[in-house]
């Protein structure tokens, strides 16, 4: 009981303890705010990538594509773990704006918008007809024209608040899209005959996926048109990828394993058929692996932040160590007195460890509260700073970020609190151990000097 009383009295009476609490609180505050924002950004980015790719992608990086996709899609459709599938054509093309001297290299994605929306979040990315993919390629100004969906950053510019100018319907703009069709062997299909396939499309909608690389370089085209443009619509039709959505109760890895197994069976059955060698370039990947190149960069930044905050944590441990060293060196008399009335070394360790835990807990609570309040208001604060000082954490004309993520994760808070207490215990470990090991006679004698 005396340990609880003494630990709390040391805390209240020794003003230097407040510095340790403040150090812990500041550290916790910084970690909570930065980790919440960073984790929010990473999770948001992952969600967008998941939404963009679906659960699993069976595809090839080769611009030639792979054949017999309809057969494999039939197998997938009959599988109990598959909810929906969507074939896609992917290639590169030159986008030319008619009547303007403007050419830009783009990535073209040929899809069936309804099928693709069953697998991915495509319908939700549409700017003018959000949630309704059925008319994605039907220009509102003339339904008879062949439409295309532009990545939103190709179609319009964001303002400094990351908002796009509001327009009720897309303007009537015609684009020429030209690409090099390839044969099944990878040769130019139109060698000696102009080389390129060109088709005119009309701006029917914009897609805002929230992924900067996608939104500023992708043009969605009707599946059949894209297949023709890329030279994949021959007697043996080809595509670039099949996007798969698993049933809700199917775990990602299990679903991918089953899809990979189905693919291997399919490959065996197809072996020997015309162009079957193209199937060797196909991989079965979860959305995480498919988008690894993009996600890894964010995760690396997150890891670097965690390492940096590890150093902040070490600094806190050192501050706590110094404070406890000072406190305990002033409390040698108390240690001698306690031992003279029968306190054991373990009791002394418990006393000062309890004191350290109290410092950690209080510091963590103050830091968490401050961090939580700050996060609650972070977007208002940023808005105010922008209105008064033109300061933004991220330049919204460059970064595809809307509001700053501020959803606090209870698990993260718990982990930070536990880490703060552990840091305090670690900082207090050496002085506490020294105090416990001290001989009562020496401490009492020192107190008499």
């Amino acid at each position: 009981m005396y340990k609880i009383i003494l630990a709390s009295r040391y805390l209240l009476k020794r003003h230097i303890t407040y510095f340790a609490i403040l150090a812990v609180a500041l550290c916790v505050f910084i970690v909570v705010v930065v980790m919440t924002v960073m984790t929010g950004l990473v999770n948001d980015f992952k969600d967008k990538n998941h939404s963009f790719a679906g659960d699993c992608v069976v595809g090839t990086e080769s611009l030639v594509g792979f054949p017999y996709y309809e057969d494999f899609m039939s197998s997938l459709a009959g599988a109990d773990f598959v909810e929906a599938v969507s074939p896609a054509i992917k290639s590169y093309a030159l986008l030319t704006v008619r009547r303007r001297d403007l050419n830009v290299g783009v990535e073209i994605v040929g899809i069936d918008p309804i099928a693709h929306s069953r697998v991915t979040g495509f319908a939700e990315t549409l700017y003018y007809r959000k949630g309704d993919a059925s008319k994605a390629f039907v220009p509102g100004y003339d339904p008879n024209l062949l439409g295309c969906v532009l990545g939103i950053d190709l179609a319009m510019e964001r303002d400094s608040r990351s908002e796009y100018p509001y327009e009720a319907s897309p303007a009537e703009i015609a684009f020429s899209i030209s690409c090099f069709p390839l044969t099944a062997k990878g040769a130019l299909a139109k060698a000696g005959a102009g080389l390129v396939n060109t088709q005119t499309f009309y701006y029917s909608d914009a897609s805002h996926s929230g992924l900067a690389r996608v939104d500023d370089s992708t043009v969605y085209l009707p599946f059949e048109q894209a297949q023709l443009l890329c030279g994949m619509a021959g007697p043996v039709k080809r595509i670039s990828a099949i996007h798969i959505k698993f049933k809700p109760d199917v775990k990602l890895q299990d679903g991918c394993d089953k899809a990979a197994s189905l693919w291997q069976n399919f490959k065996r059955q197809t072996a020997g058929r015309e162009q079957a060698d193209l199937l060797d370039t196909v991989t079965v990947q979860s959305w995480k692996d498919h988008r690894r190149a993009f996600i890894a960069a964010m995760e690396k930044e997150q890891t670097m932040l965690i390492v940096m905050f590890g150093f902040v944590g070490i600094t806190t441990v050192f501050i706590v160590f110094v404070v406890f060293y000072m406190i305990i060196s002033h409390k040698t008399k108390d240690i001698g007195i306690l031992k003279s009335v029968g306190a054991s070394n373990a009791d002394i360790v418990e006393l000062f460890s309890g004191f350290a835990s109290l410092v950690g807990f209080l510091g963590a609570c103050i830091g968490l509260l401050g961090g939580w309040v700050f996060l609650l208001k972070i977007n208002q604060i940023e808005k105010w700073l922008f209105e008064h000082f033109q300061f933004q954490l991220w330049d919204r004309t460059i970064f595809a970020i809307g509001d700053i993520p501020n959803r606090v994760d209870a698990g993260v808070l718990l982990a930070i609190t536990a880490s703060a207490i552990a840091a305090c215990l670690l900082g207090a470990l050496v002085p506490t151990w020294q105090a416990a090991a001290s001989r009562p006679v020496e401490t009492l004698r020192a107190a008499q000097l």
Partner: protein
Amino acid sequence: MSGDEFILESEGIYKSYRMGATEVRVLKGVDLAVKRGEFVAIVGASGSGKSTLLHILGALDKPDKGIVRFQGRNLSMQSAGELNRYRNKRVGFIFQFYHLLDELNVLENICLPAMASKSVLAWLACRRWAKGRAGQLLAELGLLERANHKPYQLSGGERQRVAIGRALMNEPKLLLADEPTGNLDSATGNGILEVFEKLNKAGQTIIMVTHDERVARRAGRIITLADGRIRNPA
């Protein structure tokens, strides 16, 4: 020499300290026996090893050589836990500089030995008894009005009486007092000695270290420590 009548015995106690490169031999074979209910004063010049001997008798320090027996049990054979219990239950210390905990009030300081030997739950179970015992001691020592005061609010004499109360809290068989009046004026010191005499009359065994012959004369027996040995052995 060992027998039921002796509460504490020491045989051939040696103790030396290292001060820089030189070794200072403080105790050079101290033999001592204290009977139950005795009031013994150990006198000697400053640096003669009186306090060192008292600390060894109270298991606050260990001798380099020699044996200390309390009620026939050899302290050097006891574990750290048993020695903690010995300091908590069997002996009570009174120091020249009182050594009260500044963060605790008078009542809490007196209750400290009772709290030290109990877990939180055990303490909560016996709290009423402990507070009753502490209140009784406060009344006997004339400190009832000071129960909620902090040590810095008390006079030297009052602080020493609190230290006596703390030493008596667990009803120890032996009181060890190290220059208990050394930091007090003669009138206040006299009051402390009267408390000791009263306790001794009630059967309390007391060993008191002092350099003051007049203080020592208040004890039932005087032992003189000189040159690391007892000059008038028991």
